[in-house]
């Protein structure tokens, strides 16, 4: 009855430029109509596996294949990319680069155009696909006016033609803010149900994918299948943390409370499980941990005072009457959906743009007096994509560059560079070329190059975008260390709620150019109105607390405290 659509038999693959197999002896059968999550840390081979299914391997990425991989009964090595694309529709990670058309309609039509479908037939099909992905009415829109989530919908619409049997999503959530991510997971689920497709999702954001039911989870590690099981069993086990994948927060909270999960527990779906099984544990644990409700104002001298600032791009008001203060040594998360004003705020603090109304003062001095360059020595800005920042070949040169541009004296340059290299644990690598570094290491180099100017505040834009939990933890622990040991004030621009919970004390929330909230993280994240308005997502902790009858704010607070204690000890 179950008909296999994807069959790997003792399949190994090695990229042409590499010495070692990236996939090792994979045996895997996926049946028609299954919804499967392929989970694994970066570099585990999960994207390689996806590319073997859609045919990019071996047609675009040559290499050596042993064993067999059959997709819809076709041996991929003997077919070609185009035959496979009739069976497999792929939605890639980079929603911007895969938008090829100059309008939504054109992009959805792209594969039809290549198939020589006459235009009269095309129109109907494009409309139908647009309707399926909720993009009707947008056919004339340009890519530049769409959000990441909308572009992804279009990408999905573009591969729905020809009745492809398999839909393959390669890290679909990577570029989306929490609410968009939820919509995407929802949409994938709806299409899965309505169209009877086989769906494969490659992701490392487990909790977000589990927002909707999946049948099976395949855990890939080091090129091999580490686990092939159902979501409940996976969550029950303790393998996730070892593999560098983040456990859903509510599972961590339950485990912290000492809950032992028997086979009757349905863990994957938070809406469903019978909370009575662990309410007792949770409440008892919470009473033990119960935090005293903090209300003290952080001490420390005031560094930054943003006072009634308004800024517009032409007719568009990007920031409306914003006021907040930053004190030395604080860790603040600046959150809000894309386009809410976070990046504009960062540019304003760096002096790249200047307020139309209101003032920004640094240590009591109005920043208007400083040039961008002078401000750069007080407030550093680390961009999201390190590749957009690195200009030199060698790590040491990169770190010295900013100081040279600022015409520091030679001996200061040497001294600062050495210190920064040691602070950032890059000292042993100081003479390495940048080209051999991993993404995470590059990120560290960019942070180091900013630190070399000795700023008191560092603004880090999406420090963890596109990285798995292991690398994420590495970078965040590193930033935490900078904050703790060197007293550097850090502002994180992010839409990752986990980051805000785990690594910051205070949250500033933007929505449509307005400051929506400025308070302790646990208070902001348990405030439903704020969450909804800012296009954020309720954390599962809130749901769990509500079900157990505990005050969400205090519950999150206790959870944060406990996790931080655990991290400090372990």
């Amino acid at each position, binding site marked *: 009855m179950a008909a296999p659509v994807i069959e790997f038999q003792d399949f190994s693959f090695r990229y042409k430029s590499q010495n070692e197999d990236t996939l090792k002896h994979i045996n895997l059968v996926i049946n028609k109509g299954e919804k499967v999550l392929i989970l694994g840390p970066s570099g585990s081979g999960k994207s390689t596996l996806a590319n073997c299914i859609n045919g990019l391997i071996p047609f675009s990425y040559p290499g050596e294949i042993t064993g067999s991989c059959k997709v819809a009964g076709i041996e991929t090595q003997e077919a070609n990319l185009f035959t496979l694309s009739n069976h497999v529709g792929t939605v890639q990670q*980079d929603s911007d*680069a895969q938008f090829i058309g100059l309008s939504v309609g054109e992009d959805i039509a792209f594969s039809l155009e290549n198939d*020589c479908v006459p235009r009269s037939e095309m129109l109907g099909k494009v409309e139908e696909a647009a309707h399926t992905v909720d993009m009707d009415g947008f056919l004339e829109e340009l890519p530049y006016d769409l959000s990441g989530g909308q572009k992804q919908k279009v990408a999905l619409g573009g591969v729905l033609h020809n009745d492809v049997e398999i839909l393959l999503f390669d890290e679909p959530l990577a570029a989306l803010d929490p609410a968009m991510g939820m919509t995407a997971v929802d949409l994938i689920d709806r299409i899965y149900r309505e169209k009877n497709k086989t769906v494969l999702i490659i992701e490392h954001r487990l909790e977000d994918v589990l927002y909707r039911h999946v049948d099976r989870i395949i855990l890939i590690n080091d090129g091999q299948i580490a686990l092939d099981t159902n979501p409940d069993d996976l969550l029950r086990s303790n393998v996730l943390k070892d593999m560098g994948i983040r456990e859903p927060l509510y599972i961590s909270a339950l485990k912290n409370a000492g809950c032992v999960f028997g086979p009757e527990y349905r863990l994957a779906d938070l809406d469903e499980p019978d909370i009575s099984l662990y309410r007792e544990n949770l409440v008892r644990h919470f009473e033990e941990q119960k935090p005293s409700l903090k209300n003290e104002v952080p001490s420390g001298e005031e560094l930054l005072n943003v006072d009634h600032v308004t800024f517009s*791009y032409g007719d568009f008001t990007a920031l409306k009457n914003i006021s907040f203060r930053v004190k030395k040594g604080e860790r603040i998360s600046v959150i809000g959906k894309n386009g809410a004003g976070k990046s504009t705020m960062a540019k304003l603090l760096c002096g790249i743009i200047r307020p139309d109304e209101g003032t920004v003062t640094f240590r009591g001095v109005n920043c208007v007096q400083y040039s961008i360059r002078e401000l750069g020595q007080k407030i550093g800005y680390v961009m999201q*994509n390190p590749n957009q920042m690195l*200009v030199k070949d060698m790590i040491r040169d990169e770190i010295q560059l900013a100081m040279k*541009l600022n015409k520091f004296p030679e001996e200061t340059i040497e001294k600062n560079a050495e210190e920064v290299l040691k602070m950032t644990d890059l000292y042993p690598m100081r003479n390495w070329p940048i080209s051999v570094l991993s993404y995470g290491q590059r990120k560290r180099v960019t942070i180091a190059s900013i630190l070399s100017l000795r700023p008191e505040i560092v603004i880090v834009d999406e420090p963890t975008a596109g990285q798995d939990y292991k690398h994420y933890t590495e970078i965040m622990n590193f930033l935490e260390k900078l904050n703790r040991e060197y007293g550097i004030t850090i502002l994180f621009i992010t839409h990752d709620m986990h980051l805000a919970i785990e690594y910051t004390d205070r949250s500033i929330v933007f929505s449509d150019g307005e400051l929506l909230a400025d308070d302790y993280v646990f208070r902001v994240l348990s405030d439903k109105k704020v969450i909804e308005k800012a296009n954020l997502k309720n954390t599962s902790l809130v749901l769990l607390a509500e079900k157990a009858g505990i005050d969400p704010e205090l519950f999150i607070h206790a959870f944060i405290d406990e996790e931080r204690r655990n991290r400090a000890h372990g």
Partner: protein
Amino acid sequence: MDKRLFINTKPGNTFLDKLTGKTKVRTFLILIFLLIATWDFRLILPLFFLGLFALLSLHPDPKKMWGVTIFIILMNLFNLLLLWLVSPDYGRNLCGESTVLFRLSEFYIVTAETLWYFLVRFTKFVATFLISMTFIQSITPSEMSAGLHSIKIPYKICTIVSIAFRYIPDITRDFNNIKISMQARGMELDPKKTKLGERLKQNVLILAPLVITSFDRVGNISNAMDLRGFGKKKDRTYYSEHEDTKGDKIMLPVYLAFLALFLVIVFMNIFHPSAYEVWCPWIG
């Protein structure tokens, strides 16, 4: 914030806007070839008015137009001035006679033929400019690519055109981001504070990360195209290329007539060349 280029991405509502890419590209190319082939004012003048009328029919934004128009006119006048300075009796070679109107010196004379030639040349260049502007203002990159394909240019080349327009704004955005981060690190790009040489050197520094990020993008784009079957068949259809409208049916005989005229002119130039290149009313 500067997302739009000089070109259009959505077709407008005028007669010319509504034509198919096929008609737009064909008409444009034929008119341009015709203008290149002829020095006959009797043909150039009507083409000049045709171009002017066509451009105005698009109701272009005058603010966008003025800068380019003035630039083109000044460049042409400057060009003519230089020509006159180098050889004041230029008209003799082209028209066959030389009627001196007045003399500034032994060498610098003003002749009727040279002035006539300059008038023809100026009108010809401005007409070319008007027709090109009309073309650029009325076509979208997708229609251009469809139109080029309709004259049997391989679609892979046509697609490069539309892809380039698609990603130029993205690359501009990347460039601006990189520039901002470099400025915050202390790069001084203010023209008042930095010398030109230094500024050029610093802009080169910005290019390195730009090239690397663009390469990443190219890889992703080409995968996305492959996965949706680009290059699968020998031919391709176009979503943006709508069915022929009434306008296209009117334009078909028009551009065919121009094509015939072009062929006649080429034929005449080759087999019955007139003694002098430029037709002059008083010489005949």
